[in-house]
């Protein structure tokens, strides 16, 4: 079984974001990067599937600058077999259609049985990449999965709907799945596995090998949300804050 996992590296969402000099995305310097959280569930599901079927080979792929190799190495340490880095210093300027096309050009003749992605990225959040990739490859896509069972070439997946409800979907492989938080418990790479991962294949391609298409979406600008100025902000030492808070709760609510 050939498995592909597509991952993205994103900044820690607790970061302070500054708009970049072109005014079209965030300034990428001085940020701590990590694997997109949704993608950790995708990697974990791929590794669990391999543990189940035994005879499987997992390729983990990421598009981006040199630093994204760190995310690929983490996925290798979690149990993926080989890494593919599609080097692109300007990946942030590309829209989901272009990124899906780049991976399509890479994957189209490789016969992957199953593809996992996160349901969205934490920074851009458009939730399009996986579905477009599946459309280009002509394979079915099941999105937002919180349950995954494989048997005899068929996957039974649970899609998360609103309000805690789920939809159960059956699909034959090949197919693509986009993974929602809570699907599984992503493992932490152990030290021996981190060491082993250093010996695993990590091939780099330049994005120009695969980029065939123009962007379909144009970013006009990026800025900060308007502050509606709703909240009264309290700062200071703890004892003082407690006094003020209690006073406000007494005045404004009926709970104290």
């Amino acid at each position, binding site marked *: 079984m050939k498995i592909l996992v597509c991952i993205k590296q994103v*900044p820690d*969402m*607790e970061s*302070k974001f500054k708009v970049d000099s072109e005014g079209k995305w*965030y300034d990428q310097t001085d940020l701590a990067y990590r694997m997109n959280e949704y993608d950790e569930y995708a990697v974990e599901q791929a590794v669990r599937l391999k543990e189940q079927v035994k005879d499987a080979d997992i390729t983990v792929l990421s598009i981006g600058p040199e630093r994204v190799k760190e995310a690929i190495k983490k996925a290798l340490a979690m149990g993926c077999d080989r890494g593919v880095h599609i080097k692109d210093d300007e990946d942030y300027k590309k*829209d989901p*259609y272009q990124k899906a096309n780049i991976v399509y050009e890479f994957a189209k003749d490789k016969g992957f049985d199953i593809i996992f992605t996160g349901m969205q990225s*934490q920074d851009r*959040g458009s*939730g*399009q990449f996986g*579905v*477009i990739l599946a*459309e*280009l490859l002509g*394979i*079915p*896509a099941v*999105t*937002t999965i919180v349950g995954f069972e494989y048997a005899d070439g068929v996957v039974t997946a649970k*899609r998360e*709907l*609103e*309000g*805690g*409800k789920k*939809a*159960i979907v*059956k*699909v034959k492989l090949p197919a693509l799945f986009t993974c929602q*938080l*809570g699907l599984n*418990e992503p493992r932490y790479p152990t030290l021996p596995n981190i060491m082993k991962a250093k010996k695993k294949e990590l091939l780099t391609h330049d994005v120009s090998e695969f980029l065939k298409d123009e*962007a*379909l*979406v*144009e*970013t*006009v*600008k*990026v*800025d*900060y*949300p308007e502050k*509606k100025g*709703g*909240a*009264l*902000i*309290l700062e200071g030492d*703890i004892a003082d*804050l*407690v006094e003020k*808070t209690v006073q*406000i*709760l007494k005045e*404004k609510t*009926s*709970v*104290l």
Partner: protein
Amino acid sequence: MKVLLVAEYREKELLESTYELATFADKLGAEKVWFAAGYNDNLPKVAGKLYLADANKYGEYNPDVHKNLILQVVEKENPDYVVFVHSSYGWDLAPRVAASLKIGQVSEIVDVVDGTFVVPACNAKLRRFVKPATGKGVLTIQAGAFQPAEPNGEPEVEELTLDTADSALGFVGYEEAEAKSVDLTKAEIIVSAGRGVGKPDNIPVIEELAKALGGELGASRPVVDAGWVDHSRQVGTTGQTVAPKLYVACGISGAIQHLAGMKKSEFVLAINTDKDAPIGEVADVLVVADVMQFVPALTEKIKSMK
């Protein structure tokens, strides 16, 4: 300008969010044409042409088939935009339509400024102004971002058919949410723990404040996914939608899905080290402090008052 609006059904019920599409279309000043894979005896009460595919035949969740039905309408009507709610139905189906038409998609629109669409990025710490470079496009709107329009008309229905309803995706059925051991929807006071609480060992500290106030413990999604708090206490789009008298958000940054579940609270007290956290947009008071220092002190104070 003409828009094709995609209505949404679940278990034979039309979803209310469908009417938010009408408000969005009005904001664009666009002519409205509708599509629904729905039921003849429960149609959206909207004026305009409605292309109806019988959901008894074509399913409520059958994205390959719904895509082909929508493509049929696009061919007939040639709309400028095809618009969905950014829901588990919309975000699943929209990119299929966009990819088939090879036109740009803009996801999770919260506003329109001079014909450009505004979408949140990085946990709503930034916003992007984007538009399809292709002229025509597929759009999804954030649920709750546009007030639902009043149901105000009868659609002019045209039935759609396809030669085949076969799909690579087999819909087996729905699974209900786990029985809620805790009904937060009726709680008057909720104290919720977010990721900023730090570790599972700190949850009892939050619970203690909830007890001191006579309320219930709630939680944000990451805390539930990490197994620190049971799912039945999750507040947000995929958890419970609450409206207590007092909502205390401890170490919750304010992801959109969480805000959607608690913004009807009468009074919101947030505790966060980051004073720019999006929770500040819905909070009445934002205490800038470490949750693990402030919350125990507040609990002590409240206990001493009794």
